[in-house]
């Protein structure tokens, strides 16, 4: 049974802050390769952003919300620590109350967790349709360097077995025990990071390369055979390092490198970057997605583009549509001034 993606939608908030504003405030900017990043407005959160992309994805097919048989939501920045997230988005998007839903929240891998949950649903229910909405705007203390790169964005996908624009070729996962890097203790809702570069590099490299190489082996393929390689982007340099390890050609990383202009989109990083690749990919192109979440785990997903797309709100168009804010405005929007 062939399943895949039938539609998608993206939302990039229009507010941006430049790295120069951080440098002026703190003397440095720590997110490698990021020149500016997106910021949510005061009246937005991951639930309003997820609702927006869920509707956009359904309209792109087009598919009525009443046809959705599985809903999955992902974010590491929920406005509530306890309270169902999917209920809000299902209500806003008009998805039937009887649809089974799941919330994926505990690491930046959450976006691909939700996608795989959606794929598994449509593989088991070929007549069904899964709607997967991922939105994130991670928060950390302004005193930490991990905060510098944190941006905001959202992407949603409609998965099924009809009207496919991209077919699922396979997926693999790898999870392992690593710690010290990007965690929340429960005492506050801010990301902590012990900032030991070695922890991060070893956890990131181990999990992403294990997941990706297992998938390549399963499909009997090499990294260089992919026209688009979409990698988790805590900054704009990480995809290059991982790409090299899995044998991707440099040019295959370009179409999805959204972090240079948007920053670290957390759980929405790979879903938004995948949308950027789908915006420009040609029929016949292959796309490899490799996510990463601290703690740590990675998912690898292989897709083949099979249908023409007519994207309405492309990632590139939304990246270009922006209004700059200064650092003081940023602090107000992030609620950092009490």
């Amino acid at each position: 049974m062939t399943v895949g993606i039938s539609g998608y939608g993206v939302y990039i908030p229009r507010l941006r802050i430049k790295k120069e504003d951080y440098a002026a405030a703190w003397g440095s900017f720590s997110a490698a390769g990021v020149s500016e990043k997106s910021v949510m407005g005061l009246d937005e959160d991951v639930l309003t952003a997820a609702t927006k992309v869920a509707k956009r994805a359904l309209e792109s097919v087009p598919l009525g919300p009443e046809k959705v048989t599985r809903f999955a939501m992902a974010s590491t920045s929920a406005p509530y620590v306890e309270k169902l997230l999917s209920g809000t988005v299902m209500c806003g998007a008009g998805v039937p109350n009887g649809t089974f839903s799941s919330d994926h929240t505990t690491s930046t891998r959450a976006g691909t967790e939700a996608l795989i949950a959606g794929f598994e649903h449509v593989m088991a229910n070929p007549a069904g349709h899964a709607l997967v909405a991922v939105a994130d705007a991670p928060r950390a203390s302004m005193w930490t360097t991990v905060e510098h790169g944190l941006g905001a964005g959202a992407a949603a996908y409609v998965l099924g077995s009809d009207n496919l624009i991209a077919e699922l070729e396979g997926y693999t996962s790898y999870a392992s025990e690593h710690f010290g890097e990007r965690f929340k203790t429960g005492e506050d809702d801010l990301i902590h990071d012990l900032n030991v570069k070695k922890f991060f590099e070893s956890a990131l490299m181990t999990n992403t390369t294990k997941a990706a190489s297992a998938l390549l082996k399963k499909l009997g393929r090499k990294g260089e055979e992919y026209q688009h390689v979409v990698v988790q982007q805590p900054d704009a340099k990480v995809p290059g390092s991982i790409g090299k390890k899995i044998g991707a050609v440099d040019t295959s990383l370009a179409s999805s490198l959204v972090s240079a202009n948007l920053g670290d989109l957390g759980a929405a990083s790979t879903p938004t970057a995948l949308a950027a690749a789908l915006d420009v990919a040609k029929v016949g192109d292959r796309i490899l997605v490799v996510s990463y979440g601290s703690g740590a785990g990675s998912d690898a997903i292989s897709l083949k583009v099979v249908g023409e797309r007519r994207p309405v709100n492309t990632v590139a168009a939304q990246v270009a549509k922006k209004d700059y804010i200064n650092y003081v405005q940023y602090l107000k929007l992030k609620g950092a001034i009490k």
Partner: protein
Amino acid sequence: MAHVSIPMYWRTIPQRYKMIGQKCKKCGAVNFPPKGVCKYCNASSEFEEVHLSGKGKVHTFVLIGAGGAPPEFAEQEKAGGSYPVAIVELAEGPKVIGQMSDVNPKEVKMGMPVKTELKKIYTEEGVIRSGFKFVPDQ
């Protein structure tokens, strides 16, 4: 603060999240937000539920600023500056009041096409009150 209790707010979720209005079974006019008695014919309290498109045009608007915001929006005004509030004529007929978002306040014009989108309105009792605001419809 203009207190809206949680049960009262909860009852308005279909209209605030999904633009659910009502069509009068007697005169056919669309009421939004929903009413007890049709505000157009004043003669019927029987309605059929309708899902409005959320699209419309700015009929008139005002900028709220200089400390003029009601208490629940005071923080929003302090952090984000003055914000537009519009009366929008919806495609289905009713005129509705709502905040405008995702727009430079100076670029709001009468007649400009808008649509509704789910936004955070304010937070009270630790509960985020979400609902529609109007955004430009390009």
